[in-house]
């Protein structure tokens, strides 16, 4: 009897405890990398993860980076000071500041996402890699990685066409982040030349892989080629820039806005001109909320990126009923304050909160026309410069368009300034053309090689990479 009891107790206890498989526990909402990516469909999700990061964080194209060069280019106004973005406009970014730190970290993060996905893609079975989707996804990852390097180079490195820049100076470019590195890898910056070579080679490689069909919310052949045209332009490769831009103009599905759809295009998903557009999600967990393009450019939000008096006077000077772009700035008022704001980011019509949901158009056809015109001009082809300049401008006029002959670089920049206002171009356009950068609220100007045209490398990064070079002046 006694033994029966004992064995009953003991066997009960062993039943309860013997299960050593439990030592391999797994989370329920995430998976180890090799289990997460097993097919092209999984790899597509990882690519979506790259775009999702861009769509939701406060630092990238849907938020701070979408307005960066406008604020530093002297065309915006700190209408409300909500202490979110005005330090950019005021050139108050130091190496401890969170804005350059977030730029650095977030661009690095999406680059690393690309590298992780590319590595996981390499490990897919041969049968999956043989399919066309695989090429399309891989092409997008390579193109996106090149774009993010380009964006980092615009933030942290001097532009190659600035007078007196030594493109071969050690650590003048950005980190070439082209593979999955060990977490304790020590990084160093490349030269400007190496950086632009990497960007251009990456985009060219992607062209061999990408689909020419539309990739919703993603990069197709022509999006990559448009970005390539931009990279060539920044790098001073005029002929290549013109060639790439012309191919996009001639062969891509994108077409220029008309005066009829110009205003409504901004709230449309996949507008006519969109070559690469990031989709924002109508869910506060998945968009940058008030720190987005919409929240910065309205009196109802943070309202820190208004319209500066200087550029306002240009909009004001446009004769009513001619250039449709006149209505892209408006006086906004509420019971507390008022100010002029750009009207590009007024939300998708379906959004719960319009302020939070504004798709950034990372590159659109109008910019490609400017690239073509500028590259043509600089390569001595005045006829083509005139052609692309006038073709574009004409679509913006309801009435009374008069073509310009013998366009100059200043003509192109002046129209670009109006067309691409608040799309992150102004300061870059001035600097790469060796023009001085005005201050938004004083008469002060900055030379194109002024130290604070660049962002500092964040201290957190030089702390972990002691051999990494800081930008001079910080």
């Amino acid at each position, binding site marked *: 009897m006694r033994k029966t009891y004992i064995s009953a107790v*003991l066997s009960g206890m062993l039943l309860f405890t013997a299960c050593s498989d439990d030592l391999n526990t797994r989370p329920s909402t995430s998976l180890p990398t090799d289990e*997460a990516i097993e097919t092209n469909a*999984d790899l597509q999700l990882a690519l979506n993860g790259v*775009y*999702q990061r861009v769509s939701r964080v406060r630092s990238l194209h849907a938020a701070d980076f979408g307005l960066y060069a406008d604020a530093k280019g002297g065309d915006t106004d700190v209408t409300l000071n909500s202490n979110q973005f005005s330090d950019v406009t005021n050139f108050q970014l130091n190496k401890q500041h969170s804005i350059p730190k977030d730029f650095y970290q977030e661009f690095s993060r999406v680059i690393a996402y690309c590298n992780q996905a590319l590595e996981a893609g390499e490990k897919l079975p041969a049968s999956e890699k043989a399919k066309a989707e695989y090429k399309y996804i891989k092409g997008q990852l390579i193109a996106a990685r090149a774009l993010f390097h380009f964006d980092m180079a615009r933030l942290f490195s001097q532009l190659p066409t600035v007078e007196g820049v030594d493109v071969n100076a050690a650590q003048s470019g950005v980190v070439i982040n082209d593979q999955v590195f060990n977490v304790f890898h020590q990084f160093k910056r490349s030269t400007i030349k190496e950086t632009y070579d990497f960007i251009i080679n990456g985009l060219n490689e992607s062209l061999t892989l990408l689909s020419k069909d539309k990739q919703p919310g993603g990069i197709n052949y022509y999006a990559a080629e448009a970005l390539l045209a931009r990279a060539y332009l920044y790098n001073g490769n005029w002929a290549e820039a013109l060639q790439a831009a012309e191919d996009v103009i001639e062969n891509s599905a994108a077409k220029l806005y008309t005066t009829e759809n110009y205003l409504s295009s901004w709230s449309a998903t996949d507008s006519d001109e969109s070559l690469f557009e990031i989709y924002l999600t109508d869910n506060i967990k998945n968009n940058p909320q008030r720190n987005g393009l919409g929240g910065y450019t309205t009196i109802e939000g943070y309202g820190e990126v208004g319209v500066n008096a200087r550029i306002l006077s240009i909009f004001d000077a446009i004769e009513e009923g001619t250039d449709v772009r006149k209505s892209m700035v408006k006086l906004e008022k509420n019971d507390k304050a008022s100010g002029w704001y750009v009207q590009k980011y007024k939300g998708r019509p379906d959004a719960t909160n319009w302020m939070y949901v504004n798709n950034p158009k990372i590159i659109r056809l109008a910019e490609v026309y400017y690239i073509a015109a500028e590259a043509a001009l600089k390569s001595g082809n005045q006829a083509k410069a005139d052609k692309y300049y006038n073709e574009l401008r004409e679509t913006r006029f309801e009435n009374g368009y008069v073509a310009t002959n013998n366009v100059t670089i200043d003509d192109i920049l002046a129209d670009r300034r109006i067309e691409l206002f608040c799309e992150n171009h102004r300061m870059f356009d001035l600097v790469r053309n060796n023009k001085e950068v005005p201050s938004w609220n004083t008469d002060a100007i900055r030379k194109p090689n002024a130290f604070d045209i660049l962002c500092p490398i964040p201290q957190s990064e030089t702390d*972990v990479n002691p051999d990494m070079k800081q930008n001079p002046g910080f």
Partner: protein
Amino acid sequence: MRRLTLFLAFLMIGVSYLAAQTKASGVVISAEDNLPVIGASVVIKGTTIGTVTDFDGNFTLDIPQDASKTLVFSYVGLQSKEETAKPNMRVVLSSSSQSLDEVIVVAYGTAKKSSFTGSAANVKADALSVPSVESVDKALAGKVSGVRVASTTGDPGSAGEIQVRGIGSISSSTSPLYVIDGVPVENGNFNSRASSNILSSLNPNDIESLTVLKDAAAASLYGSRAANGVVIITTKKGKEGKVNVNLQANFGVSSMATNSYETMNGIEYYDYSKLALMNYYNDRGGVSGFNSPEDYALAQLDKRGLSRVNGEDWRDYIYKHGQEQNYQVSISGGSAKSKYYTSFGYQDIQGLARGTDFKRYSGVVNLNNELADWLSMDVKTQLSKTDQKGYRDQSNQSQGIGYGTPLGLLQQANPSKTLKNENGEYNAVLMGRGINPYYELNGKDKFLRTENFRALGNLNFTVKFTKDLSFKTTNGVDFSNAFINEYWGPNTIDGGGSVKGMGQTDDYKVLALTSSNIFMYNKSFKEKHNLDALAGYEVQSYHRNYTQAAVSNYSTDKLPDLSVGAPSRALGQTDKKFLQSFLSNVNYNFDNKYYVGANIRADRSSQLGADKRTGVFYSVSGSWRFSQESFMKAASLITDGKLRASYGTNGRLPDSFYGHLPLYNFDGIYGSNSAIYPSQPANKDLGWEQSKNLNIGTDITLADRFNFSLEYFRKYTSNLIMEVPVSSSTGFTTVLQNAGEISNQGVDFEFHGTDMLKSKVKWNADFSISYLKAKVEKLPGGKSMNLGDGEFYRYEEGKDLYSFYFPTYVGVNPETGLAEFLKDPTKPYSADNVVNDASKAERSIVAKAYPTISGGFNNQVVYKGFSLNVLLTYQFGGHLFNYPEYFMHHDGRRAATNISKDVAGNYWTKPGDVVDNPRPNAGGTGSDLFSTRYVKSSDFIRLKEIGLAYQLPSSITSKAKLGNVVFNVTATNLCFLYAATKNMELEVPLNGYRTGDTPLAKTVSFGVNVSF
């Protein structure tokens, strides 16, 4: 008092033949109450011959000629005593809870204090149940040396923070392991938005004793989780005897213990703001649209809704007086073979801040049964439900003070306005927001409610194979369900405007199953050799299920439930972890003089990399009870004395469940498609954090009543589990690694005096003092790190843990009125080394947060039915960062934030003013940024508890057929006897972070305790 009895049992088994020769007789009396002890056993030493006392405590015993003349008197709960047999004896037995050689609960068993070679401190029930303290961790303050207790917030139900012997970790939990009735349980904070203490699910009145295991010898049997110390809680058991019914009721009131958060009144704030605006105008050289500084200031003041009158005292309104009630009933008793304890409790504490409340309903059933002489069974069941209502708090030290929190409301409330206007309507009083705090604090329009249902069940069997060998299986089920419901109605700040109300529920279900199965062997041979040993196997599985749902856009402000809003979010997740362990312990002593012991435990955990899963922890210890040596026996003053030493290792697991896996997260959305993204890098080498512990101590008892204990400890922790910064080019900014080393060393001293005067006035005293030095030894790559809120903790090799890293504030320049900071803090003050903007000043390590010296001093004086208890706690050498005051010393910069009262009349207005606060300037000058201006000494001596109890004489109670009737009045946190910094709550966690949460309350509570 009824002492009911072993005596039937003794009559049956104990009494053998009686060969009458000498007759002993007398009465046995309890020292505690001077009443006769019924059923006390009286046995002739070395025999089984004996008797028990009768209902008047009397006995007679015939002693055979050849037997010893020494009688042993004993009774459950009282200390045994030997006396020479004679007629008409009067034997007084004192309570064994005061016994200096008590039996204490230790890892996987019990030990006599005299033979225990490790370092452990035991606290008994009466010291743990302090009225108005809802969880046992908070009742420990000042009662055990080397154990520090603090709360980040005074809201009822919030977590206490216990740290045993210093700071266990840099970035992981520093909380000890809690073991309830042999089962390691989950503890800590389970709500990420407000401090919520899982230990508050346990009613302190149901606790029999609590043991803190401090060194490796004591704790390493718990191996992997013991590095921060172990707290063993034992719940009450039934005692053999007649039914004992105990009723207890308490009622108390509370108010803020310190004069914290006092703000300027309406007139003071108006004058201050006006000056700040005028100075701004002047410094800026004018503001367009205004002709004079006065014009500008008046216009702005008007815009802010300020007028030069005194309005409501918002501090009184927001931090209203709290109150509490507490009712307990317990019924216990049993026979020799079957005992029971059962209790029901209800406690309700309304906190200081309007709308905060904590309620607990608890019940316990504990049964002990001897099923056969070789088999016994224990069943323990605790059920409780807690219901905590309050607000988001800052216990997790996120930056900023929420504007909807009580302190945020106080800071924003316009001091020139009243709560209601003359029509009885609520005024718009929050500066810049136009809302009345009523809507934030009424408990209807906004709340954060945490309901926790917890069931702890144990089923244990003990099998005795032989006299020496037994087996015990302990099987525990710990189930808790935390349901968190947060609502921000459309009338509140956060729920207002286009949000139209937000609601969210979080549901956590946690099931932890533990089974430990231990063989025990215990043998004495050749009289002087005593050996005990145990070996066993333990497994623990933990399963957590989490769901969250959130809505916004409520269709009405009248109903807060989720169905009334439009869904915005749903989350669900399941997590598991598993731990497998083998453990063994051997203790040997020779003649109760020389003791050695060793522990070993091997743990395997699912939370670590496959190759690093197994951790082996051990300890060795020894002691020499020199008082047992014959040469010491002569030194009659030293009645007990012991030297002991131990060395061993303990471990700690990461907080994260899957920190070793490279993971992709699946919760992404891109457009209308799903998205996945890398969430953590691979770290297959993630292993145990390990600490090596040395403990050397001595315990000396003088004249049986004065007990001294002195210990030195050193704990060196390596392979710290830390988030190590890495280049963001890897896609991550930190990775979880074993890196870094820290050390904690110190000295603990305790003194316990029992009945020190040996007079009718009985005086017991307990004094403890601890010295602590906690240091950073090694950091990854030798690189210093800044961590914490605003990165203001500096971790630097060779420096103190929790070192504050701030610009050095010098003071206000009497000529300019500007704040001055040292530009380079390593150099002395000079005209060249001064900046006026803190952001232009270099930072340096300016102070350490943790106190060097801390402890408590408890005195109990008993005279007749009266008992007075006074507990002082103290600490010295620590500092705090006063985050709330940082906001309230903004020097005019924050337009919608009131200023601290201490600034009134103490700010610069004209050259020559020697004051503490700079010239106000509405534009801000960098004077109010983080700096040593807000670092204060946290030294104090506090009257922590004072209690007076009166027990009705038995002459009265016996007429009413009652047992004990005790009336008591208890006050906690009554005052500081010394405070280095005035008007501030100085009890802060070891990290010195004074959060913007409700400070501690002082409470006065009245109670009655009746048993029959």
